[in-house]
């Protein structure tokens, strides 16, 4: 919606928003907690309120949208095949903006051994069942992974009358935002066990217990630390993966680290005229940044439509030490560019360096870095002017 609204604001007339769900706003509808919109709207909104601000703009700007409509196919020629209960439809577009969001990593993907009973949910599914469908998923809950949705769900489950026994996190630090650790765990005295993971699952019908063990420095289980926790529910909050099945189908090149398309500074993928923004490009921790990213890439969309998105000398953004990834992965112009990063591990008093060979282009001090928090840095066209190489690293 943010991209569609921005497109309309930039004067693009012919827009179609395709949504497979029954309503606009996607996952925000089930994120009924607050804390959204601090940057964008200078207010602490809940997910549905945040979504509503955009829904109103979509309606006010008369942007056509399809609900309950699934894209079956996306071609490099920017044709989409959509189905809904009215039939199967073809749309040909001059540009396409991918904004499909992300999905949750599952038990299968992280390989927790043991039995396969019912009662194992990803945090987002639990959130949907509880917050949108009025179901309760269990009584005694263990949460694996300290991602934000897991933390939010710990609080939700407590407020809805369940017992949350613990949150176990494989890494020696939490992958959630400090705010959520404070308000979702500490407020309710839920223990957060760092360097712990699930090593076995019991239960024939319904889940009856989870075995938790402590991990050593190299990731192996420390002998003697296994303990069986009796519970009927295991919630997984073990990471999000950009939902790029359509992108892959179209032949768009993906970045193996972000899981999203490789893009230039305007969010343009390897197929000219197809752009990506939001969680389909890289998993964000703050929704405001998703909106801002959408608005930002629309500038490129407009340039593309007007034939102004020209390629100067294309360069790859090289990734140095301390950083897990950078978006964009390449630059085609030298215009103002926002770079997004995630660091490898938590640290203090770090410096982010942008370099052309041995020449320092920009330096940014970061007092505290955390893999849970995306770092965004803007470089101006002045700073980028004429560069032939670009490397970023964290020291």
């Amino acid at each position: 919606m943010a991209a569609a609204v921005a497109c309309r604001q930039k004067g693009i007339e012919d827009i179609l928003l395709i949504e497979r769900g029954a309503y606009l706003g996607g996952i925000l509808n089930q994120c009924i907690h607050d804390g959204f919109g601090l940057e964008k709207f200078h207010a602490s909104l809940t997910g549905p309120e945040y979504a509503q601000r955009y829904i109103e703009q979509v309606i006010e700007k008369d942007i056509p949208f399809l609900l309950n409509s699934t894209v079956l196919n996306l071609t490099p020629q920017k044709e989409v095949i959509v189905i809904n209960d009215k039939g199967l439809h073809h749309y040909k577009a001059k540009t396409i903006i991918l904004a499909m969001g992300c999905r949750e990593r599952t038990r299968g993907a992280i390989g927790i051994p043991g039995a396969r009973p019912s009662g194992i949910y990803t945090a987002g599914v639990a959130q949907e069942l509880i917050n949108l469908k009025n179901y309760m998923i269990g009584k005694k809950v263990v949460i694996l992974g300290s991602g934000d949705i897991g933390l939010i769900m710990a609080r939700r489950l407590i407020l809805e009358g369940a017992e949350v026994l613990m949150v176990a996190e494989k890494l020696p630090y939490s992958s959630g935002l400090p705010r959520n650790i404070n308000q979702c765990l500490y407020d309710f005295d839920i223990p957060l066990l760092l360097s712990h993971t699930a090593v076995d699952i019991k239960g024939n019908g319904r889940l009856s217990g989870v075995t938790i063990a402590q991990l050593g420095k190299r990731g192996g289980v420390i002998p003697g630390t296994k303990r069986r926790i009796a519970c009927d529910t295991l919630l997984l909050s073990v990471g999000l993966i950009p939902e790029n099945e359509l992108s892959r189908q179209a032949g768009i090149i993906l970045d193996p680290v972000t899981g999203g398309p490789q893009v230039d500074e305007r969010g343009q993928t390897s197929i000219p005229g197809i752009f990506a923004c939001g969680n389909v490009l890289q998993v964000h921790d703050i929704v405001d940044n998703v909106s801002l990213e959408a608005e930002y890439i629309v500038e490129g969309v407009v340039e593309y439509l007007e034939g102004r998105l020209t390629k100067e000398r294309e360069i790859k953004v090289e990734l140095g030490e301390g950083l897990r990834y950078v978006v964009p992965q390449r630059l085609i112009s030298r215009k103002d560019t926002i770079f997004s990063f995630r660091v490898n591990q938590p640290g203090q008093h770090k410096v982010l360096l942008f370099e052309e060979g041995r020449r320092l282009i920009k330096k940014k001090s970061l007092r505290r870095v955390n893999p849970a928090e995306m770092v965004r840095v803007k470089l101006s066209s002045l700073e980028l002017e004429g560069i032939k190489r670009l490397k970023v690293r964290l020291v």
Partner: protein
Amino acid sequence: MHREFICIVCPNSCHISVEYEGTNIKDIKGDQCPKGRDYVKNEITNPLRVFTGSVLVENGDFPLVSVKTSSPIPKQYLKKVGEITRQMKVEAPVELGQIVARNLLNKKIDLIATRKIKKINKKNSLLS
């Protein structure tokens, strides 16, 4: 008593450690600005939170309407308010921002809807 806080006022996420007795603060370490100090003081003396949750809706296009308290409430009431929301029911339509319950627990806690619910005529509602 001793407690460690991660300040949430700004992205600096200062780790602040506090020595205190009841609501009487003896020593604060690790804060980098007055805002962090205020945050920790409030956390010890009177921690406030916005409650968010959902309430059952009759004849709505969603089975639930999401709600929040109109202002932050003392932390110790969160669970009680949660219990109340599980026992309430409102009738569709509901407007965003509409007050759906007033003066909970006699503590001037109001619940307001955070989404819009349209009225529909469902004959075979799953919840009826």
